[in-house]
């Protein structure tokens, strides 16, 4: 065997191993689901866009009008001005579940393929991303406190759990060396920016009122990631065929 054949063989082994050990489709799909499933919660929150608490969902439930605690604010953080803590709870509960599902996927994939990524790296990344999520929400809660309705886009609106998901997508692109995931991350951030602008500009932004309502905006964001997951899945199948 010549040296160039040997180098070619080594490169071939590396290429095949890389293909077999990578695949961003499932984690992208899980992140897409995490975002898409938040849509009804945002729709519900924005449907009761008032300082006096959600109407339809809570019925006659009267929310306290006393000065909110920090935890209250933490759990309210989102891009509308309602007193609805469903969004905070959604992220605090669904995000760890999504992370656990992604970790389980990597575990199963390692057992199936015999190729594994560093578990500690995934755990560390998950911890950092979740820490960033909570920090983001805390920042939003603090920044939004005392910001009056009609004052325009509040500081906390620009830093949302959606940006943390974007961070997760870019980390995924790095771990998987996936161009599709990187492009998905850029598209998602662009859609997020556009969605914020369009929702604030739109006169019909509550609930599911129109394509730029909070419900649909969040749904579109999830769809961006789900479509990217589909593309990544097709690319994986094609490469391995």
């Amino acid at each position, binding site marked *: 065997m010549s040296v160039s054949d*040997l180098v070619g063989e*080594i490169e071939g082994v590396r290429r095949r191993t890389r293909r077999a050990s990578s695949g961003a489709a499932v984690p992208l799909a899980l992140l897409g689901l995490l975002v898409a499933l938040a849509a009804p919660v945002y729709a519900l929150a924005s449907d009761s866009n008032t300082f006096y608490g959600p109407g339809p969902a809570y019925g006659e439930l009267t929310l306290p009008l006393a000065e909110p605690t920090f935890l209250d604010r933490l759990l309210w953080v989102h891009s509308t001005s309602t007193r609805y803590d469903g969004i905070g709870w959604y992220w605090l509960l669904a995000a760890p579940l999504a992370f656990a599902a992604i970790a389980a996927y990597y575990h199963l994939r390692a057992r199936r393929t015999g190729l594994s990524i560093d578990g500690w790296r995934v755990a560390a990344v998950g911890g950092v991303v979740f820490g960033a999520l909570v920090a983001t929400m805390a920042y939003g809660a603090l920044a939004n406190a005392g910001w009056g309705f009609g004052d325009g886009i509040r500081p906390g609106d620009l830093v949302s759990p959606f940006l943390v998901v974007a961070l997760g997508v870019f980390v995924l692109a790095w771990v998987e060396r996936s161009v599709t995931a990187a492009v998905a991350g850029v598209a998602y951030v662009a859609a997020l920016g556009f969605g914020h602008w369009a929702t604030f500009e739109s006169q019909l932004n509550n609930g599911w009122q129109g394509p730029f309502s909070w419900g649909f905006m969040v749904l579109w964001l999830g769809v961006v990631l789900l479509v990217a997951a589909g593309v990544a899945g097709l690319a994986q199948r094609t490469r391995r065929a």
Partner: protein
Amino acid sequence: MTTDEHPLTDLDELVHQRARLGILAMLREAAKVDFVRLRDTLGLTDGNLARHLQVLSEAGLVSTKKAQSRTWVSLTAAGRKAFDKELAALRALVERFG
């Protein structure tokens, strides 16, 4: 080495063996590779692969860990460096002599 030295002087006999290069190449692309996956991909026997891993392990280039009835092999920092150096030397040879 200086740039005037022959590229062959950069080759590491321990790493250069074809099967060992294959092992290191796979480990360069995944953090951990299962023994069975290595054996099947590289077309080695159990005994042959075990022997190569023993040599690489004694040289501090790979580490093995048993977990859940599997043996996972990973590259050490020294192994990564040795593999990259070997591949660079081989490429230099190809570039120089075709």
